[in-house]
């Protein structure tokens, strides 16, 4: 018999360890095990694993398991809209369409032309600098001088 480990047939050893191998093959494998320490080690290790897993008991099932289930089953027809909504949301095209809408909306917001700035007279007054006021007074004084000079010229004439 070829060594199961060497030919990659560990399933044979697993089945033997779990006592699931058919008799003729089990007999052949036992003969091989006598001379193959690697396979022997595999089988011994696997039997330890089986025993450890066998010892793992599960807790008892809650007594009201069926009752809870049947109550939920009774509520099923009332939830038809819920199932419809869920199936609608899980349709393959829907997330893609939603993503496309989002991209378009963001694009429209970003591409919106800037509105012309509205006149803000009060802010202009508030933003006057001292130099501007000074210049305005100079202009007024210059205008007044100009008017006076003009009158003088007119009187001379």
């Amino acid at each position, binding site marked *: 018999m070829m060594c199961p480990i060497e030919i990659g047939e560990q*399933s044979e050893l697993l089945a033997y360890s779990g006592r699931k191998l058919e008799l003729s093959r089990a007999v052949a494998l036992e003969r091989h095990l006598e001379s193959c320490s690697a396979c022997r080690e595999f089988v011994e*290790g696997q039997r*330890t694993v089986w*025993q*450890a*897993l066998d010892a793992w008991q599960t*807790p008892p*099932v809650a007594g009201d398991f069926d009752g809870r*289930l049947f109550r939920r089953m009774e509520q099923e027809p009332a939830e038809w809209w819920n199932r419809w909504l869920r199936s609608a949301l899980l349709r393959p095209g829907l997330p893609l369409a939603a993503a496309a809408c989002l991209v378009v909306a963001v694009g429209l917001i970003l591409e919106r032309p800037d509105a012309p700035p509205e006149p803000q007279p009060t802010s202009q007054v508030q933003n006057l600098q001292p130099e501007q006021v000074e210049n305005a007074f100079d202009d007024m004084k210059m205008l007044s001088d100009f008017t006076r000079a003009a009158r003088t010229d007119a009187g001379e004439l």
Partner: protein
Amino acid sequence: MERVNKNMASVAAALDCDTQLMIRVKQGDGASFGVLLEKHRSPVIHFLYRMVQNQAVAEELAQEVFLRVYRSRGTYEPTAKFTTWLFRIATHLALNTLRDGKNQRMETRLDADVLEAPVRQVCDGRPSVEQSMVREARLDEVRRAVAGLPDKQRAAVLMHKYEDMEYTQIARVLNCSESAVKSLLFRAYETLRNRLAHMA
């Protein structure tokens, strides 16, 4: 060849007793659903418990499994064995729960599991406190070793060991090839052999 295999699977599914019951459920026979529930309740819950290692979460997931079976009764088609379909739903839910970490909410129950374990009646010579502690420590090691396996390896081991499933059926449940299942199992058992070697 693949077509022939599929046809054979369909024929085998049609001959499956559970499949016949499910077809009756499809036709509106509620009693058949009760029979299926009675037969598969414990295996499904035990499988889920060993997957998520939390009894409350396992029972909640099992409720969802049977609800999904009930909801799908109208569209049910016997293309595979009933248990393959059932465990595919259960595995899918368990893997999602593990991925989302929902089973971690009550992680302490991994240790508290001792309290939930069935009470063993011993006629005489009850195990000493020390013996009980040793036993629990060993069980805890087993649980942790299994919990340490990657999710798919864990599912494959539990179906192979406790549900006695063939490689082909596990492959159908996990939606992968038979050789992939063999690979999953060999790697998983190798890890377990290394981790539990001292228990010999």
